[in-house]
């Protein structure tokens, strides 16, 4: 084995680490396990006792669990801040989970700047969304089940980001997938919700297959799945890892590509993004928590976590960047023509996730995580705002049937505007800092095509966000006149999270000032290989670039304003849609990707499954079993003739037998 030597050294290292942990006794790192434990406890209480508890108690348990978890996360975060940068790496091994031959997997947690940021996002946004759900799900009869699932999701998500090895990360990875399935299909009486849940689950399995292959490759290459050991060995084995292995690509390239396939599935990138828009069948808080703020960003987290491996594989990074950039612009074009308020935001999410991958793909890992963090705030805000609108309009989701809502629901309208501006990347909202940084990193790294794609995407982002806001909140009310008089703003449980998230969407970006050098980046620098100060080369261009992307996004918003608010341009969208009818129809039908999958993937699989059912299972497998039974039946039918029930026959046969036997004894021999 190539890694024998370093493995021994590592064994010693990990022994030392264990000793140190034991010696320290009680310390902050022994509290890491508390973070995921509270949501788990909340889940257990609500799933088993929730039906008997009053709604107030159910919501207190669920929100309390998340609140405490957030508190512990904050405590851990400040503890981490107080340590010297190179000591910000707390590892806690709970127990050895699996030990088979030389395979060992421990259930252990790792708290470092990266996972600290993630747990703050998960518990913070998660807590707000839990509170919001009290109002949004208030009338649902499965109130307790909903909160139980939300808590379970939080548990698995925290497991995912806190794991100190790839296997435990995979447990969380699959767990959040399960919760996503359960929550998309929360209203499983509706066929659309049930099939959307299945679609999400199945499409994610495709990605997970790649992820598993990545895990196997890591295991065979490094002999361990522990982050620390893998990354340390990766430095030592530089030459071995980057030498061409199979298909002209190096081992580390194969590993990172396989892992990235998992990220494509989980984070809804081309070509596996199709499940995310359908996932909007779930309750809106679910869309905000799972399908915008946290779960779908797991792929970005995983790639950033594996940055020591990705930096050894330039080809994989290029793939990541290209997939991200293409997804960003592809989803943005679809978002421009959709009419379902949640689907517009869903495509926007796909597009923003593409930006994050673009960021990590061009090596700016910290910028990708920065965008992840700001996006969690403003996209959750947008979804919750959309939820408040849907709630007020009695489950109307078509933005063509909205309009003029601002006077009726001011809190929602203004917070939604903040979220939309942040998403469009307008100064000084959070999205500006992070998105601009990604675009600048792409430009600075010499990826001009990717940069241009991102910039075009920024224009589209401004346009579809403006379109969404103006069609929903401005102009005339176009919906059901019966509901016109009772449109009301969100109750406090829903309004307060909106306001908090709106404030976050304004200020969250400030920790990233100055760009690529901000406190956020310096905090992450020890973990991420191309951390903070990686690309300080062409800083003279930073301000002009920022102004340019600002102008582009502003232009998008301006076009949106002209199209959907300005009276003199009132008919322009229809005219354009008619003039570019072919293009419009293709984009409106989401490039027919779903139809393509239906015809070329799902259909053939269906037919194959039908053949295997009728042609193989029924005919061959069942046929063999039934044939044996038929043979036995025929044989016993013959033998049954002998058993006449007439004693005389039996006696006669005994006599004949005796005579034959005696005859044999006397004359036979």
């Amino acid at each position, binding site marked *: 084995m190539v890694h024998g030597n370093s493995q021994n050294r590592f064994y010693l290292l990990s022994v030392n680490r264990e000793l140190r942990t034991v010696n320290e006794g009680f310390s902050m790192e022994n509290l890491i396990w508390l973070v995921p434990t509270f949501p788990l406890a909340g889940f257990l209480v609500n799933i088993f006792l929730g039906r008997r508890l009053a709604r107030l108690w159910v919501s207190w348990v669920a929100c309390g669990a998340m609140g405490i978890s957030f508190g512990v996360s904050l405590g851990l975060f400040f503890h981490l801040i107080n340590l010297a940068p190179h000591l910000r790496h707390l590892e806690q091994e709970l127990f050895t989970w699996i030990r088979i031959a030389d395979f060992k997997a421990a259930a252990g947690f790792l708290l470092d700047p990266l996972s600290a940021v993630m747990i703050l996002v998960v518990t913070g946004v998660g807590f707000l969304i839990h509170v919001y759900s009290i109002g949004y799900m208030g009338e649902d009869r499965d109130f307790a089940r909903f909160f139980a699932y939300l808590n379970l999701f939080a548990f698995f998500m925290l497991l995912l980001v806190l794991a100190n090895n790839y296997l435990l990360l995979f447990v969380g990875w699959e767990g959040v997938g399960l919760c996503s399935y359960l929550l998309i299909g929360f209203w499983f009486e509706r066929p659309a919700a049930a099939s959307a849940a299945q679609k999400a689950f199945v499409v994610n399995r495709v990605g997970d297959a790649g992820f598993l292959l990545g895990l196997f490759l890591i295991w065979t290459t490094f002999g361990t799945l522990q982050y620390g050991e893998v990354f340390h060995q990766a430095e030592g084995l530089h030459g071995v890892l980057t030498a061409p292995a199979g298909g002209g690509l190096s081992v580390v390239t194969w590993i990172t590509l396989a892992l990235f396939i998992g990220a494509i599935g989980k984070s809804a990138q081309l070509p596996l993004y199709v499940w995310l828009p359908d996932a909007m069948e779930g309750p809106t808080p679910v869309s905000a928590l799972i399908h915008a703020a946290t779960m779908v960003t797991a792929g970005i987290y995983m790639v950033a976590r594996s940055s020591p491996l990705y930096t050894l594989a330039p080809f994989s990074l290029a793939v990541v960047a290209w997939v991200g950039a293409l997804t960003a612009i592809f989803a943005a074009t679809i978002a421009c023509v959709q009419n379902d308020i949640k689907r517009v935001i869903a495509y926007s999410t796909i597009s923003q996730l593409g930006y994050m991958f673009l960021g990590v793909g061009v090596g700016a890992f910290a910028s990708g995580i920065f965008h992840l963090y700001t996006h969690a705030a403003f996209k959750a805000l947008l979804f919750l705002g959309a939820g408040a609108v849907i709630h007020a309009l009695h489950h109307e989701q078509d933005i063509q049937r909205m309009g003029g809502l601002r006077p009726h629901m001011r809190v929602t309208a203004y917070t939604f505007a903040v979220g939309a501006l942040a998403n469009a990347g307008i100064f000084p909202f959070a999205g500006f800092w992070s998105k601009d940084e990604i675009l600048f990193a792409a430009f600075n790294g010499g990826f001009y095509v990717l940069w241009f794609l991102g910039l075009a995407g920024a224009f589209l982002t401004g346009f579809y966000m403006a379109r969404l806001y103006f069609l929903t909140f401005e102009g005339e009310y176009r919906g059901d006149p019966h509901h016109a008089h009772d449109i009301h703003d969100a109750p406090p449980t829903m309004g307060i999270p909106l306001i908090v998230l709106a404030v976050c969407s304004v200020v969250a970006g400030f920790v990233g000032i100055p760009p690529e050098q901000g406190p956020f980046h310096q905090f992450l620098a020890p973990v991420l290989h191309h951390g903070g100060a990686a690309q300080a080369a062409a800083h003279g261009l930073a301000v002009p670039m920022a102004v340019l992307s600002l102008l582009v996004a502003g232009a998008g918003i301006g076009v949106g304003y002209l199209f959907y608010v300005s009276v003199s341009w009132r008919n322009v969208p229809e005219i354009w849609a008619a003039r570019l009818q072919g293009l419009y129809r293709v984009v409106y039908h989401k490039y027919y990707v779903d139809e393509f999958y239906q015809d070329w993937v799902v259909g053939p699989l269906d037919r194959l499954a039908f053949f295997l059912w009728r042609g193989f299972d029924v005919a061959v497998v069942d046929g063999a079993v039934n044939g044996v039974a038929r043979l036995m039946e025929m044989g016993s039918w013959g033998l049954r003739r002998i*058993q006449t029930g007439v004693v005389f026959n039996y006696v006669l046969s005994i006599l004949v037998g005796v005579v034959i036997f005696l005859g044999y004894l006397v004359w036979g021999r």
Partner: protein
Amino acid sequence: MVPLWAYLLLSGFLFIVGVVGVATRRNALIIFMSIELMLNAVNLTFVAFSRFLHSLDGHVFVFFVMTVAAAEVVVGLAIIIALFRNMETVNVDEIHLLKG
């Protein structure tokens, strides 16, 4: 002295009577008695051979056969009584629950 063949002839006759009884009669009690007749025919053979061969082995066998026959009578009569209680008949042709 009565020769051996006379015993064997009687024994064979009794045995055939038993066999024919079992084969032809329909009354379970008669069949049962016919079986006893066959057993006793064999017993007669044992005793006759024992007498003529000056060996006590035959006697020992006879005691065993008689013991087994007694036990068999107990069980067999019990079965027949149980049958009669359930089926109201001891005619073996009417007792064909196990007929295939």
